[in-house]
Structure formats: C-alpha cells, structure tokens
C-alpha cells in the first residue's frame, strides 16, 4: 500500500515541523552570540550547551564562508569549501550546524556559497547531525533565492528521506521558477518512490 504522511518526526521539536519561522527565531536568534540550547531531544554529539561552544567556531565559519566566495563550484566535485565545511561539522557536530544555520537563515552569505553548503549537507555522511541537516535543508526551500532553493532540493534528493515529502511538495506548489518547479517535482517522484519501497 502506498501511504503519504505529514506526521511529525517525534525526534524533532514539534514546533519546528509546524511553524518553521517560530522555530528559527527560538533557536537561531539574529546574533552570533548564541545563548539558547538546542532542542533537548535533538541529537548532539557534544555534551556542552551552545553557550559553551568553542570560541574558535564562529571565526572558523566566518573565514570559511568568506573564502568560499572566491571558489568556483562544480557539481560532483569537492571544493576546499566543501572539505572544510565537512571537517567543521564532523569536529563540532550540531554546534557547527547551528552556526551555519545562523548564516544561512539570516542570509549572511552569498547564494552561491549557500547553495554549495546545502548540497554538501545532503551528500555528507554524518548520522549525528542528520536531523539538523534535514531541518536546515527543508527550511532553505523557503529562501528568497532560487539558487538556494535549488541547493536545498538537491541536498534533500541526496538525503533521499521521505520525511521531506510534504516540504518539497509545498515548495513545488509555490515555486515561481518553472524549471526549478520541475526539478522539485522530479525530487518528489524520487522521494515518493522510496516511500512505496518502504511500505511494500
């Protein structure tokens, strides 16, 4: 039987799944000096809270995102940017994701660099940060930039998680760029075929 669900993921803060902006404002205040903890049921490889984040993390991200502006990105090819991004996420776990989310959600970085970051969030293999990566990709489908929405939908295609179906469907329904809408629909078909595979 084929089923499509919009059920919330119990491992996720429920407000994140129903009111994404409220979630962003609760957990991603417009300041890089974070004081609020991650949702308590979020997986975190670090025992420390955000207020204890390593001080070099903010600076590392600033340098990474600035240097990324000078790179030319190619599909399917690693870049200095992608290698350093993955290293930071593997080293600092969800703290790194939160820092990246701040830059992306508040559009502090170019669409080109953000798109590359989102594609690699989908490609990288790091189970401990999975839910934050999924959330950030889903959230980025609402970006004002078509390039960022494209990076987000590609990242979700790489993750291939049917949980993203309702978000991709909503994004496709409101997508004003014809080609991008078609790309989103293509990803929907892939995700829904995965759902059929799981339920059969």
């Amino acid at each position, binding site marked *: 039987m084929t089923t499509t669900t919009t059920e919330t993921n119990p491992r996720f803060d429920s407000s994140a799944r129903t009111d994404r902006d409220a979630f962003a404002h609760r957990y991603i205040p417009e300041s890089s000096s974070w004081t609020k903890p991650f949702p308590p049921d979020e997986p975190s490889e670090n025992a420390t809270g955000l207020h204890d984040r390593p001080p070099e993390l903010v600076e590392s991200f600033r340098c990474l995102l600035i240097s990324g502006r000078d790179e*030319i990105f190619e599909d*399917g*090819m690693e870049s200095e940017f992608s290698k350093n991004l993955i290293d930071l996420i593997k080293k600092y776990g969800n703290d790194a994701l939160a820092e990246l989310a701040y830059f992306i959600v508040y559009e502090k970085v170019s669409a080109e660099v953000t798109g590359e970051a989102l594609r690699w969030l989908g490609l990288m293999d790091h189970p401990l940060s999975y839910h934050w990566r999924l959330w950030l990709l889903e959230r980025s489908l609402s970006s004002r930039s078509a390039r960022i929405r494209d990076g987000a939908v590609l990242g979700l295609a790489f993750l291939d998680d049917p949980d993203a179906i309702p978000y991709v469907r909503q994004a496709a329904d409101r997508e004003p760029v014809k080609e991008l809408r078609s*790309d989103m629909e*293509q990803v929907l078909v*892939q995700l829904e075929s995965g759902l059929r595979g799981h339920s059969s």
Partner: protein
Amino acid sequence: MQDLRTDSNTISVWHIVDDHGNKDRIIAALAATRQQATNFDYFLLEEHYIREINIRIVETQGNSPDNGINSWHRDLVELSAEKLMALAKVIQQHAQIERILDKDISHFLAQAMLAGRFDAKKINLTSAVLAKIIKGIGDQQLEPT
C-alpha cells in the same frame, strides 16, 4: 554565463544523435569523471542555432573513460566574449535544460561498469562512491528474479 566556462576560448560539448541513443552513455562517462555520483545538469541545443551565431564546431577526440563515445566529442572554438554572450542567449531561448538526479546517475554508472565500458584509469569517483555503486550492483544481482 557562469556555467559557460571556456578553456583557451573553447567549450567542450558532445554530439547527441537524433534518436538520443548515445545520450545516457555520454552522461554516464562524464559522471564517472567526477568525484561524487551527484545530479547531472545539461542542456540540449539544436546544432543549427550554434552555426547561426557563427560559432565553429570542430570534431575532436574526447577524453572520457568510455572510449566508445569519444568520437562524439566536439569543441566550440574561437569563442570571443561577444560569441559567448550570443551562445548564452540562444541557450536561454532555445535549449532544453535537463537534470538527472543522483540515484539515476548511480544507476547509469552501475550499468556502464557492468558492461565493462570504462577505462579505470580515467575514473575519478572516490573509493566510497565506487564501493556504494558496486554494492548496489551486488544487491541487484542477489535479488530473486
């Protein structure tokens, strides 16, 4: 314009036959030159549009891992900034832009490997990606018919 990168005023393209019979094979070969089996974005443009803007098309041997397709390689040569702008314009107006998602690319790569079409020395896929594709082939072969 960002995607039209030239090398010595030349852009490398591939000739697709009328029935598109060589298209998937060319895509597989080009995908194998990357590190990751990710999405593959491309455009299809009728050759006459290129000739109409006075861009010269030269048959040159490709350097893909699949020797069987390298004769379909072409170079668009002597590209000035003006010609490049004109090319960008005809692509925007007349090209068919398409995307193949990573899952299908992995499938194309697996098929090409099973058929023994690749020169291993020219493949750039990382060992992790290769292992995943080979595992996929193994799983497929183990599936009951």
